[in-house]
């Protein structure tokens, strides 16, 4: 029978919702147990959150100052050690998981399945290639552990609240490397909803024209309680920081409502929003490819249309 180890992602003492999404994927394996592993400097609050996720059998913790920051070189040997006895190791396909999971797979000497969209069987998965232009079915060899990253946008977060899994502290006895050191994390402070988990997202592209003009996007997003995203062109032009980039090489998101403003709809951008519930496109070019995928399209100048929309909402 399968046993799945899910690696918790967290920041600032809080569990990231990508963890509960990975638990949903773990449940689809239909194994006998799902354990969540928390590696942190202080684990208690994070473990308590993880213990409430439905379907979790146990929460395992490894506490220590060396785990204060998610350095792949430091975390991977600990995860690989704990992974002994598990048939599956699932990690969210966020920058955290993309960084650490392949290092775990290599230590275990196994292949990794990246960006799992669906679990077809304990060793059969679907994942996107070519920026989502093809979906492949992949079979992993059942003789080996499966290391996989879970594409958050494909999975709902497992419910929380009803359960209370036991928490067990582990102390894996292994030497850790000192060759990699954390220096700092520069975070744009924002009280807007988080781009990756928001139910509404408003994104701006090169059409917005400047950093100053991007205020119109932020104001509109705040008015409707949305997170803010951007195209690569908008990030490259310096209108907004890189963590707002949506797309193949940015964030893959699945909000209920996605509003693309001044974004042409390049394939690399569309990859990031395929799973959105409703897509709205606002663009002055009626031929823009974004209209091919939009549920509602509105042709015109964004600087006129956004105020119009704000007025129509009131």
């Amino acid at each position, binding site marked *: 029978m399968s046993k799945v180890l899910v690696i918790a992602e967290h920041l600032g003492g809080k569990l990231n919702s990508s963890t509960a999404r990975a638990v949903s994927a773990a449940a689809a394996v239909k194994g006998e147990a799902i354990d969540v592993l928390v590696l942190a400097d202080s684990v208690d609050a994070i473990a308590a959150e993880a213990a409430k996720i439905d379907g979790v059998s146990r929460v395992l913790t490894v506490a220590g100052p060396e785990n204060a920051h998610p350095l792949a070189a430091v975390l991977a040997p600990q995860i690989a050690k704990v992974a002994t006895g598990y048939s599956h190791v699932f990690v969210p396909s966020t920058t955290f998981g993309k960084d650490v999971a392949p290092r775990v797979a290599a230590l275990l000497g196994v292949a990794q399945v990246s960006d799992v969209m669906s679990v077809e069987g304990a060793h059969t998965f679907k994942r996107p290639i070519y920026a989502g232009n093809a979906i492949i079915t992949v079979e992993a060899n059942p003789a080996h552990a499966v290391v996989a990253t879970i594409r958050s946008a494909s999975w709902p977060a497992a419910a929380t609240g009803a359960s209370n899994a036991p928490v067990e502290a582990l102390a894996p006895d292994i030497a850790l490397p000192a*060759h990699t050191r954390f220096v700092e994390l520069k975070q744009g402070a924002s009280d807007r909803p988080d781009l990756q988990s928001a139910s509404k997202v408003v994104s701006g592209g090169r059409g917005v024209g400047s950093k100053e003009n991007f205020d119109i996007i932020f104001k509109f997003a705040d008015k409707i309680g949305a997170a803010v995203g951007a195209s690569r062109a908008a990030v490259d032009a310096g209108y907004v920081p890189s963590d707002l980039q949506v797309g193949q090489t940015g964030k893959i998101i699945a909000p209920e409502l996605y509003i693309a403003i001044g974004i042409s709809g390049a394939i690399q951008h569309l990859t990031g929003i395929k799973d959105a519930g409703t897509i709205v496109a606002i663009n002055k070019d009626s031929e823009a490819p974004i209209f091919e995928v939009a549920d509602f399209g509105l042709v015109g100048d964004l600087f006129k249309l956004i105020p119009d929309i704000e007025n129509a909402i009131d």
Partner: protein
Amino acid sequence: MNVPRPGRGGSRVKESQMKILVGYKRVVDYNVRIQVKPDGSGVVTDGVKLSANPFDDIALEEALRLREKGVAEEVVVVSIGPADLTAHLRNGLAMGANRAIHVVTSDAVQPLTAARVFLKLVEKEQPGLVILGKQAIDDDANQTGQMLAALWDRPQATFASKVEIAAGKATVTREIDAGLEVIEAELPAVITTDLRLNEPRFIKLPDIMKAKSKPIDTIEFGSLGVEAHDHLKTTHYAAPAKRSKGVMVKDAAELVAALKQKGLL
């Protein structure tokens, strides 16, 4: 207890004589709209345009800039793939690499195998730095660099948007979901590139001529002693579920009404 220990191969790297290995994979050009074969056996690649993986162009550009700054001495591009990769490698040489290594195999190479090949080359070449793309835009696996770093037991700095080399270490700014993270990695190390690390230079005609005399080492995959029994089998290819084209609304009021009706506003 977890005790820190120095990594393997941690002897201090002399930057001025440092060698940089660069992953230089050929992929279907990013402008090509990939079609899945009707029988689900693969994607159509006959006759489509092939180019260097964009992230690998960025990796090569970064290596060249480090050499131009005097931080490295030699830049070697590496490609693992079929016999007809020579023209592709010549592009890397024309861009400015000193030489190329072509590991020849006609089989598809999964990331773990690619990482094992790179490890063999690392053992032979003793580079101070290996720079790979964060992902190849065909398989989008995003694994090879991290796997190489694990097998080599050396630091990894993935998704780099800024790299500084000094005093035997790399200080790397990484684009992560939460913002920008800065880490320090002792050399030798593996770096994988993100899009904003640099803008690759264009190849000039005279460079193409010059590149003709630069060496390409050819190594048969089979001679490396890398086990290639990969653990993943692709059994089916499918086109993604299509979003159907929606409706055009005539003005802001109609849009807001439609969204309110769906309970989205």
